[in-house]
């Protein structure tokens, strides 16, 4: 028998093997949320790695497993990568135990990204709830670093209580930026809270941004999104003017493991960023 192996189309790369990154900083955002700043151990990867706002990655704690988080830093600030983790399960619990200097695995970037080309020249309205600010934050820093390309920028951010506000350092910087309209609200204030009190959709209707030439980018818990959509509709926003990033259970991030499907779509490859025009035409409501 001659060799039965035909011209082998198979690549050498092991898709599932992560790159090593080192935690260079841990920020305690809230009692259950931390932000990790990481850097590739391999110096050449620090130079060659690139991603776009909205993309995600798979992060490994070796021995505990892998979990999916968006990259919450901006590609315009390539010094290191950031991601934020709410402690809810096995891998997130393990991540919360880690410190500066510890190594974690990183696979990515995966998925599509926010449509920067379609946002240029538009008034941008960012609406985030809780940890949902993480993916928006990548885009916010991205547009602020190219400020002249965009119209007015407004950010509406809400959390359950003042202590549940994530990225307080960003909120403060943005509120001092004269070219940003920053509104922070909490469901319930405390003695020291001087900002707004009220649910995101209510505050949105109160500030009443114009839908003309505007795009809204929203991310937060499903219930916030549901009511915020109604409020945006009242304000005259149409589905193609509203974008979000969806969360689904993922394992591979590569369109193979069969977990993140919404109908024929794979959120890991076809998403996670979708317009509400696309979402309302989904053939399935399972997300």
């Amino acid at each position, binding site marked *: 028998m*001659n060799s039965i192996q035909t011209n082998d189309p*198979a690549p050498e790369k092991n898709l599932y093997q992560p790159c090593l990154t080192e935690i260079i900083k841990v920020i305690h955002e809230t009692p259950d949320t931390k932000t990790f700043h990481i850097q590739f151990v391999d110096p050449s990867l620090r130079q060659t790695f690139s991603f776009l706002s909205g993309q995600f990655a798979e992060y490994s704690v*070796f021995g505990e497993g892998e979990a999916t988080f968006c990259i919450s830093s901006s590609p315009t600030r390539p010094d290191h990568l950031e991601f934020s983790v709410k402690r809810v399960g096995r891998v997130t619990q393990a991540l919360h135990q880690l410190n500066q200097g510890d190594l974690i695995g990183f696979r990515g970037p995966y998925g599509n990204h926010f449509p920067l080309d379609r946002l240029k020249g538009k008034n941008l309205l960012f609406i985030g709830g809780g940890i949902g600010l993480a993916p928006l934050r990548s885009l916010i820093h991205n547009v602020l670093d190219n400020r002249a390309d965009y119209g007015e920028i407004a950010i509406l951010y809400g959390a359950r209580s003042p202590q549940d506000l994530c990225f307080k350092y960003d909120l403060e910087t943005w509120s001092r930026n004269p070219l940003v309209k920053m509104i922070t609200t909490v469901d319930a204030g405390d003695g020291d809270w001087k900002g707004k009190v009220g649910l995101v959709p209510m505050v949105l209707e109160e500030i009443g941004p114009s839908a003309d030439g505007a795009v809204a980018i929203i991310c937060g818990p499903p219930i916030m999104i549901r009511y915020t959509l109604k409020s945006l509709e009242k304000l005259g926003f149409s589905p193609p003017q509203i974008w979000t990033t969806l969360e*689904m259970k993922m394992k591979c991030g590569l369109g193979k493991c069969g*977990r993140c499907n*919404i109908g024929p779509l794979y959120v890991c490859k076809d998403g996670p960023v979708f317009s509400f025009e696309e979402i309302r035409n989904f053939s399935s409501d*399972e997300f």
Partner: protein
Amino acid sequence: METYRKISKENLKKWLTGLKTQAEVLAPAKENGLWMFRDFDGQDIPRSFQNSRLPPKGLFLESLKALFEWKSPGGSLQVHPHAALDGQRVIFGLRACDARALKILEPVFARDYPDVFYLRNFSRTLLLGLACPVQCEGSFCGEMGIDAQDSTDFDIFFREIPEGYIARVVTEKGHAGIEGRGFFEEAAADEWNLTRVKIRGGREKPLFNLERVTAGVVERFPDENLWKRVSAKCINCGICTYLCPTCHCFDLSDLQTRGQGVRFRCWDSCAFADFTKMAVHNPREEKWRRYRQRVSHKFNFFYQNFQAIACVGCGRCVAHCPVNLDLRQVLLEAAP
């Protein structure tokens, strides 16, 4: 170019035995009462073999596969990839349904992010098919467009004839496999055409029309009552996905021992309630949604993505469902 050959039963055994010097050779064998593909040791090719209980997908997409490992000697973490296997392999006795399933799965693992493990398992294997003389229990291969007596999804497809086997040599790889051996003699295309036999236990009339049931599955996706009714007796055991030659959903998980660990890929099932469970939300928490997902993925979504239906009608899920949930009946209900 396709050619045809003939070989006696004795020579087939000699040929397969000879291949063992260069390749791992697998053929049907019974173990613990179940048919499976095992190392060929010169035995007669069993005539009572219909098909393996487990589909051969596990020889390509292993049920448990180590992807990489890590070690931390002296606290410094090192990650080492596991290489894809590259030894040559020959599998004799595969059925037309299962070979089609392997073809159907190929683009899943080739597109966008090529998966070295599946693709290498595929490219390193000589696929030798065997025509079915008997219709398997629960099967509906004919309805799914599979010809159990003929197939070009193999490198070489064999049909048993009184004097041995007649072979349709389909691929270059197949020709390379028989080259230089005196075991095969030339045969004509006419001989091939004349050796087709009627499958014992085959149906005179198909159970359903594929286009019609496919349209039904698509159309009735929103019909909650239908899916609740057809999935009512499902016990979420997942055996249908385990036995399915095209089901390919997997999980990634870690095994950590002292100072080292391994990440595995292992089969998973959309029948399991925690398959899509997230921190605060599970889009397919209800059983009927999971059952609908399985049927729709095969007959609707997979087709939209890969222009193939991810079912070959092998009948394993029908024959071995512990509660007799019969996919054929479900399809008929979707498109009465």
